[in-house]
């Protein structure tokens, strides 16, 4: 399947995602520059981690207005697969492709460590290879990852089943007020959400950083492999 990794000035996980898609998952991958106004035929688009446009104004705010995001929006509206990781999640929020906003981590510290995620949805193109309730160990690396929205919007998000990943204990229990397990203080322990159609996923943890045995953890690979395989199947059926 043809995959695109968007490169903003300041992206720094673009090559990691490219590497996993190309060399581990053997896909056709290309970089998409922020000034491009097409996706060059890509079926899966990944917005990688980093500090797009230096995080000027707010994380993701400037990137959300770049030419490539117009193409990403059209792709998303047509049901195309979009995955935003970390800074890419922040860009998706600022672009309003998914609801909510990010605040500074409650500790005010940049956090770089493994966290535990409970899988809340297994019927999405990204998560169909995971088990409901499965606990994944995936690293985070961010300073602004505390997900926030109004109580009313959070209720709607839960009712629509848009919460895909939640920070939990290694046993899979909720611990929303415990910074050891909900590292940034995210509302309701939210670590990843999707749009109502389920084709746009934003998540703070980095699956591309745990997708090879040599890295000591392959929990992220199942997710990325799922996205790639689901995308290929959908396209196969369409053809």
């Amino acid at each position: 399947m043809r995959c695109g990794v968007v490169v903003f000035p300041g992206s720094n996980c673009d090559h990691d995602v490219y590497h996993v898609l190309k060399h581990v998952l053997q896909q056709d991958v290309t970089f998409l520059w922020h000034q491009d106004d097409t996706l060059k035929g890509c079926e899966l688009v990944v917005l990688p981690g980093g500090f797009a446009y230096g995080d000027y104004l707010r994380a993701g705010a400037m990137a959300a207005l770049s030419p490539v995001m117009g193409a990403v929006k059209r792709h998303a509206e047509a049901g195309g697969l979009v995955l935003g990781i970390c800074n890419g999640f922040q860009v998706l929020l600022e672009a309003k492709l998914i609801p909510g906003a990010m605040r500074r981590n409650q500790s005010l510290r940049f956090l770089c460590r493994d966290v535990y995620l409970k899988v809340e949805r297994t019927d999405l193109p990204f998560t169909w290879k995971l088990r409901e309730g499965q606990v994944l160990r995936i690293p985070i690396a961010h300073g602004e990852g505390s997900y926030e929205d109004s109580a009313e919007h959070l209720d709607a998000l839960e009712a629509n089943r848009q919460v895909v990943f939640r920070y939990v204990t290694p046993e899979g229990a909720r611990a929303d007020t415990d910074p050891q397990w909900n590292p940034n203080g995210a509302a309701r322990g939210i670590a990843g959400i999707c749009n109502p159609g389920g084709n746009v996923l934003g998540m703070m943890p980095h699956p591309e950083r745990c997708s090879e045995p040599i890295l000591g953890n392959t929990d992220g690979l199942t997710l990325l492999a799922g996205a790639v395989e689901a995308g290929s199947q959908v396209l196969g059926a369409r053809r």
Partner: protein
Amino acid sequence: MKARVTVYPRREILDPQGKAIRDALSRVGFAGVDDVRAGKSFEISLTGEDPEAARRQLRDMCEKLLANTVVEDYSVELLGNEGGRT
């Protein structure tokens, strides 16, 4: 025409940065600081002369870019050409 736009985290949202600054103020000896909100301020020069049109435009800027209204509030004030308040 000059304008100042200020953007603050919304009241009902915990502002960990403001809280850290409040605690630091107490530590350096300023008593009686109850609360601090840390925000951003923008000084914007506009070419137009119509204050109402300017206010409208500035509010639009806040909605579209300067503030994230999910977590931030904003206010807009027009300053004289010399930077004094009008």
